[in-house]
């Protein structure tokens, strides 16, 4: 097998062959180049699994959007494009510093490498802080997943909804309350008894706009796309134009951004580990495999966000 030995990999000028005394060379590899290539191939295989892991959610997104285009163009308006855009830029910049860190490791400037890694970490923290504000804001407005989406947010609202001539009620409020709302949640206790003890609303009484007739059959052919009169922050439950099943948008939104957020957290842990090892002087142009592989992981996190951003925030 000549492939291994005659490896003319991009990094080989730096890598070179320096015998079997390399402390980083595992016993079952012949050369550091072979070990580096193996690590890199392994990482790319792992990245492929990440693509497919997220890929499942992309498929889900496509099917939901195909079935309910009106939900997506309506609910997208509740997302803050500015925050999303800023976050995209933050992540791109952190990706850039990560790439530079790898470069500095290659040209044997470990100090600059650590500086770039710290900048990357800051970018990751910034991304999560912005994400945190987005999430809390939405949860405050009950822009959440599943049935909870239809739970009124405040006393006034609950009274208004419960007492008005247009009773908009979540299905079986009692069941919803019992199953999905934390009993210690004070808001929940404030929902008037009239609402709580109401017999389970028969399906036909539910206001169609709110309660999602349709199921998979609701795929609207030629139904006009609803332009919501409210931007972010307005109460969706009062909006008569809200298309059915709008909760689906937030379900998939939280799934995809949440899973991405988990990957950001893992990436941060990786970067911290790289910084610690970098500070201890473990990396040089002769051995920087972990930095390179950690970098690849961080770039895939960025790469996935590059798709998530237009998919959720930029729907016309």
């Amino acid at each position, binding site marked *: 097998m000549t492939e291994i030995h005659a490896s003319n990999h991009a990094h080989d000028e730096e890598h070179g062959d320096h015998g079997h005394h390399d402390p980083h060379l595992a016993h079952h590899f012949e050369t550091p180049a072979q070990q580096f290539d193996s690590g890199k191939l392994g990482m790319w295989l792992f990245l492929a*699994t990440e693509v497919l892991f997220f890929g499942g959610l992309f498929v889900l997104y496509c099917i939901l959007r195909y079935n309910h285009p009106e939900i997506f163009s309506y609910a997208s308006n509740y997302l803050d494009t500015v925050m999303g*855009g800023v976050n995209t830029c933050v992540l791109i910049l952190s*990706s*850039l510093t990560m790439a530079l860190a790898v470069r500095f490791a290659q040209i044997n400037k470990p100090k600059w490498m650590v500086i770039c890694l710290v900048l990357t970490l800051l970018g990751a923290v910034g991304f999560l802080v912005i994400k945190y504000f987005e999430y809390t804001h939405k949860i405050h407005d009950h822009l959440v997943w599943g049935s909870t989406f239809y739970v009124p947010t405040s006393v006034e609202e609950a009274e208004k909804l419960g007492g008005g001539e247009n009773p908009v009620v979540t299905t079986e409020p009692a069941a919803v309350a019992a*199953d999905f709302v934390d009993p210690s949640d004070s808001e929940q206790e404030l929902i008037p008894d009239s609402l709580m003890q109401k017999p389970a609303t028969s399906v036909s009484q539910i206001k169609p706009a709110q309660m999602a*007739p349709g*199921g998979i*059959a609701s795929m609207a052919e030629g139904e006009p796309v609803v332009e919501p009169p409210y931007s972010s922050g307005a109460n969706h439950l009062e909006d008569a134009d809200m298309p059915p099943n709008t909760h689906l948008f937030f379900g998939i939104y939280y799934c995809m951004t949440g899973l991405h957020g988990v990957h950001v957290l893992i990436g941060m842990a990786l970067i911290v580990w790289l910084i610690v090892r970098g500070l201890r002087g473990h990396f040089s142009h002769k051995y920087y495999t972990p930095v390179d592989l950690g970098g690849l992981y961080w770039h895939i996190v960025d790469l996935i966000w590059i798709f998530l951003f*237009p998919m959720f925030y*930029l729907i016309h």
Partner: protein
Amino acid sequence: MSPGILIGTGLALLVLTVLTVAVRYIDVGEFNIYIAIGIAVVKATLVALFFMHLRWDRPFNSLFFVASIAAVVLMIVFTTMDTAQYAPDVIKGNAPEAQKTLDELAPDAPVAVKYPYGM
């Protein structure tokens, strides 16, 4: 790959981000989504080629990565083709009527009775 290439890639990515946000406010009908995805693909390619070094890396790494993306695309295409055909036909009418139909056809079917519209 000099730092210049990396910084250039980073700048290009930022410019494309601004561009894709800007396009959102222009109405070109259904092309909006294609433009948005197109720009995202360009950005992703830039990241993969330069930040992730695929431009200089072994071809097999690129091949496998592309294969994984192809698998996702395949799944999207097949499921969407399927959905496009079956969705309107499975149960006619909206859910309340579907329940009625079910009650008529299969009175004992344990479907959607326990948790109408989810729990």
